[in-house]
């Protein structure tokens, strides 16, 4: 019995943490789209962010939920950084002007 419990515990550790669900993938994709839409307001969508968003959409269509979540999270992170960059540049660009 003891051996069996140890085996189960090891098996649980070895297995992937948890496979993403369709719901999680859709939530992640929606968040990524929102971040990209925000970046678009500043005319500052990043090329790799768009590529990651497309990859996430493709993964959702193929029901590859883990990939979808990973790509969507990547797109969201870059989208948020692009917005941050744009907000910072609203004033920072003045520093670069030739005077």
């Amino acid at each position, binding site marked *: 019995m003891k051996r069996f419990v140890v085996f189960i515990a090891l098996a649980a550790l070895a297995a992937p943490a948890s496979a993403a669900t369709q719901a999680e993938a859709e939530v992640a994709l929606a968040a990524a789209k929102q971040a990209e839409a925000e970046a678009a307001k500043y005319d500052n969508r990043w*090329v790799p962010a768009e590529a990651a968003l497309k990859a996430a959409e493709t993964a959702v269509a193929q029901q590859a939920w883990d990939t979808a979540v990973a790509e969507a999270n990547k797109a969201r992170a870059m989208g948020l950084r692009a917005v941050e960059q744009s907000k910072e540049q609203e004033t920072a*660009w*003045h520093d670069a002007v*030739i005077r």
Partner: protein
Amino acid sequence: MSHRRTVRWLVVLAVCLFGGAASPPDSSTPAADQKAFQDYFRSRFPGVPFADFANGPYAVDAAMRKQWEEIMQFPPYDFALDEGKTAFAVKFANGKSYADCFANGGIGVRQNYPYFDTKTGDVVTLDLAINRCREANGEKPLKYGTGMMASLTAYMAETSRGKSFDIKIPDDPRAREAYEAGKQFFYTRRGQLNFSCASCHVTAAGQRMRGDILAPAIGILAAFPIYRSDWGSMGTIDRRFTTCSAQMRSVPLPPQDVAYRNLEYFLSYMGNGVPISGPGTRP
């Protein structure tokens, strides 16, 4: 505390409150901007005659200039030039032609573009004027960036060679707004690489970016449209702007987007006095 001492403390306090780390808002005039811009490049490249800035990287790199001079024995834009000359003369279905849409029949006018149209309230580039001419005469607009648009602008530029950029900013708040928007675009960092136009064409002008020598921003549009070896074909300013955006890992805006036209307005105004040298060639 004496009166003088009080005043001194008030001055110190005012400097701390209002003159701190934040950069001052840009309150300069376009003319002052232009002078500072041109002075900067003159002192940065003291051996380059001002008119030579029309030749971009070839003005600042002797080895590249030598290669360019050899290329120019058989200019790769010649086919486009011939095509543009022929197309320019062809009449529209209504019997009119491009010449009817432009001052001086469209000959020798490149240096005046872009201009701010006080009627429409927007910046009109040569490419946009060509398509507006076509549409006003019942023709379909041309695709921006390459192809026939590049050929037509090549011909119109060629008839303007040697004439200096003469961009005007009329006394109209909308024109000033367009100029300021173009200036902001030029200096604003964007894209994953966190680059601005100025990163390459001011800060790193004359230096290498991989195999390329970065052209100084002054007069950078004088040679357009260009035959670019990297493209293997002709390209207009739109093509260059969209390629630059993509190289910064920023999704390009549509050709002739208001932001790109404003950028062209600002850059061309900065280059006033630099002669038109287009069509040109670039690596």
